[in-house]
């Protein structure tokens, strides 16, 4: 989630940001990245013989990534719902999240909402 925050700030996808203030967003991203980085860096210090098989690792990473994207989309939509007020129809790609939340973009796509 921390990496998604950094990436979303870099590409100005406001709808995915957990805070529109850059400094606050960086602090949130750092706070989300640091614990995971420390755990992975010191893994073999605390688990000298503990390893996870490659395929299992790939599966866990994919699940974690999907969960992070899902949680970011939900939290971003809730936190930015009143801040972002799109007046035009959404672009047909992730570009839409530059001025609207994920839910606003999905709703904008629905035919009866146009």
């Amino acid at each position, binding site marked *: 989630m921390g*990496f*998604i925050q*950094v*990436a*979303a700030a*870099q*590409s*100005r*996808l406001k709808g*995915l940001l957990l805070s529109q203030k850059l400094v606050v967003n960086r602090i949130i991203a750092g706070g989300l990245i640091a614990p*995971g*980085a420390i755990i*992975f*860096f*010191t*893994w*073999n*210090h605390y688990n*000298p*013989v*503990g*390893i*996870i098989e*490659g395929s299992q*690792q*790939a599966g866990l*990473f994919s699940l974690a*990534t999907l969960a992070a*994207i899902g949680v970011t989309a939900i939290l971003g939509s809730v936190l930015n719902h009143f801040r972002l007020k799109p007046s035009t129809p*959404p672009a*047909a*790609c*992730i*570009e*839409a*999240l530059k001025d609207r939340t*994920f839910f606003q*973009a*999905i709703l904008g796509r629905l035919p009866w909402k146009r």
Partner: protein
Amino acid sequence: MEALINIDKAISLFLNTLAGRWVLLDELIKGLANDYFLMVGASLGLLFLWFGTAELRQREINQKLALQAMANLGIATGLVAIINEFIFRVRPFNEIAVTPLLYQPTDSSFPSNSAAILFAIAFSVWFGNKKAGQVFFIIAIVHSFCRVVAGMYYPLDILGGAAIGGATALFVRWLFARMDFLINLLLRMAKAVFLA
């Protein structure tokens, strides 16, 4: 061949002299050489490549590169598993007097699986985005160097893994060029739900 293997062992022994001297350096090498820190870091780098590009056209290129890298790491891992069915090389800590810093795997030392994966990602990205590719190369080189210092691999194992990663990257790039319609369809589907 014998001479090459002897040089390989001599380089391993030389690099391993860094291990077991200073606690802090050992911990740094353990952290950089383990199965998770830089592996997950490289994978997160692909996630950054997917979401973190502001310019529309470059984003689409980066997203295709991320897909290529993901396909490539799977193919490279599979190829290493096939090669391991025919070739078995004993690990350095079982053969020469090195100080091992990490756990001691029982599978073949040649070719290095972790080097194949990280170089597969690096080559895949580098073919389409030199700047981002260089970052992934640094990750692959640092991880591989630390694995040799930690006594897990010989330098030739790393070179073998890197060669596999490079060769499969070329193959995946060729394959993607021929399956462009399928990749575009996949991206269109992701675009429809605002994920690409």
